[in-house]
């Protein structure tokens, strides 16, 4: 006769309420795991969506996602000539904020050559960018409708298409524009800075006799150079050896070539590592809290049954049966709590502001851990139950 099952059945309402409380706690643990998985997937989404095999970035940098990287935008022409390279294309990345009405929008701006790599992997509404200026394809999660006009700095863009599945490592939606637009936004100086540069240039020109005949305004475009990119994306020929191409590019000494896997690693290690550690620590703390709570619940449930346990001992119930009663209730509490937590998170994860990705393998591991902590937490209750004096069941009258 399974005593745990019957005890749970008898106190079903309270058991379910307790399990629901535990489920909420476990849902938090699951959310932490889901947020971390979402963090990884989101952080890597830009790298993966680009479809590039190599990322050529400024020497001694880890690429545009980890630090500032600037390379000439026409470097792609040289790289195209490297054996094994099928396609190369400059891209510009910039995290920026614009306002639409009173509402601020934060986006990861990606500028790409319209015929090249680095554009949106799919346009789910509207159309891709076809004009070289002032058109934008934006992530659907920005919740901006097609046709919306967006002002960024001095430029006004019209949203012509929507994409999905890509966000920045910070979870911001992406906005694709032409490379030229992105360069202008990122590298063009403000009017005050341009005036300062001109004044400095005129002073330098006047101070240098060699340049006496040069008109300063003729030199202005030189200091206003916007022909920069943050990286060159490279796609290799089928069968090409990435390390060989990588070594070839790095021989020039001015650039660093990262494979897609290396770029992902850079992102994972330098950008989201702390986030990973943070969520892991939070999960560990929540699991410890869960263990303590389960232990307290089971201990309290055991205390409430002290007289029943004493009676069970008086009628001859072996210790193993009594221990099984406590253990099975603890495990049942954990499993029902886990199931409720899983259902809860399964029905709500899409409403979280950051992407939450519930991975089956994570859930199985958590289920194992929950079962383990239930067993651990039941030990206190079992110990209490086994120490119950059977005379507690008897009257002490005579």
């Amino acid at each position, binding site marked *: *006769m399974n*005593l745990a099952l*019957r*005890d749970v*059945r*008898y*106190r079903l309402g309270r058991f379910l309420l307790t399990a629901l409380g535990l489920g909420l706690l476990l849902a938090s643990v699951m959310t932490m795991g889901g947020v971390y998985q979402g963090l990884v997937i989101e952080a890597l989404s830009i790298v993966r969506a680009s479809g590039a095999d190599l990322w050529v970035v400024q020497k001694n940098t880890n690429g545009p996602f980890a630090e500032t990287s600037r390379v000439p935008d026409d470097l792609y022409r040289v790289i195209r000539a490297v054996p094994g390279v099928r396609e190369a294309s400059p891209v510009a990345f910039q995290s920026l904020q614009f306002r639409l009405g009173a509402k601020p929008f934060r986006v990861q701006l990606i500028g790409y050559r319209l015929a090249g790599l680095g554009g949106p992997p799919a346009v789910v509404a509207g159309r891709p960018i076809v004009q070289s200026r002032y058109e934008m394809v934006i992530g659907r999660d920005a919740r901006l409708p097609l046709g919306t006009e967006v002002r960024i700095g001095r430029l006004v863009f019209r949203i012509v298409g929507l994409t999905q599945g890509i966000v920045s490592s910070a979870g911001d939606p992406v906005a694709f524009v032409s490379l030229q637009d992105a360069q202008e936004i990122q590298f063009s100086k403000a009017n005050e800075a341009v005036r300062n540069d001109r004044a400095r240039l005129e002073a330098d020109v006047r101070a240098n006799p060699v340049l006496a005949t040069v008109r300063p305004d003729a030199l202005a475009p030189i200091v206003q150079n916007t022909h920069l990119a943050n990286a060159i994306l490279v796609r290799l020929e089928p069968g090409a050896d990435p390390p060989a191409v990588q070594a070839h590019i790095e021989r020039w000494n001015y650039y660093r070539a990262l494979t897609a896997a290396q770029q992902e690693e850079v992102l994972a290690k330098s950008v989201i590592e702390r986030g990973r550690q943070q969520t892991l620590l939070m999960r560990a703390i929540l699991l410890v809290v869960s263990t303590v709570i389960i232990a307290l619940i089971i201990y309290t449930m055991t205390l409430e049954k002290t*007289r*029943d346990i004493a*009676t*069970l*001992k*008086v*009628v*001859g*119930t*072996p210790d193993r*049966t009594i221990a099984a009663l406590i253990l099975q209730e603890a495990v049942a509490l954990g499993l029902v709590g886990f199931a409720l937590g899983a259902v809860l998170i399964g029905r709500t994860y899409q409403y979280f502001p950051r992407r939450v990705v519930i991975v089956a393998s994570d859930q199985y591991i958590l289920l194992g851990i929950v079962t383990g902590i239930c067993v651990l937490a039941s030990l206190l209750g079992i110990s209490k139950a086994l120490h119950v004096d*059977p*005379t507690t*069941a*008897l*009257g*002490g*009258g*005579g």
Partner: protein
Amino acid sequence: MMPTIVGDHVTKVFGRGETEVVALNDASIAVDAGELVALMGPSGSGKTTLLRALSLIDPPTRGRIVLDGRIVCEDGRVLVDDRRLRRERMGIIFQSYNLIPFLTAIENVALVLTLNGVPLRDARRRARALLDRLDLGHRADVHPPTLSGGEQQRLAVARAVINDPAVILADEPTGALDTERGKAVMDLLRRLGREREAAVIVVTHDDRMLEGFDRVYRMTDGRVGPGERIRRPVEAEALVS
């Protein structure tokens, strides 16, 4: 004939030194199979302590407990698995019923059988038959807290006798019941005890409940007086028939 259960010069001491209390003082009792014995005495005389000692729930400090000719406890040492002994050879009834609230009536009765290895289905069948006999069949699937006091005590009696015990120990089984229900429970206990040839020891301090008992032992200050025969076996048999 060898007595079914014997408490031989049993002494129970609680505490030590200045706080020492002698609850049982060289108490002896022997009960035969099929014999109904009442244990009477004022509050604090050691009745419940003797019952605890005989059931090995709280073994005596000195003396011996013998069951079916076998020494099961000697000078504070329990020589058998006491829980196994209780579930296989004893039935115990409490003043406050002590039914397991999360088990239904039938499960309370069947529990002891399942602990003894009887398959659940057989245990439930036997428990159902006994409950029907005790006029509790219609209450088989309810939980004890919903039963009346009389029903709960009949259920407790059913639990105590379902395993055909050699010894039935009852601690004030009618203490929480009115006279009429108390007599009904006592009558039931007598009937089932005789049927099963069990040695029945009932703690009571109500003289009105002694009808049908074979002997009464009176206790004072932890000592058991000589057993007084209060009814001849022939008369007792007549009562059963």
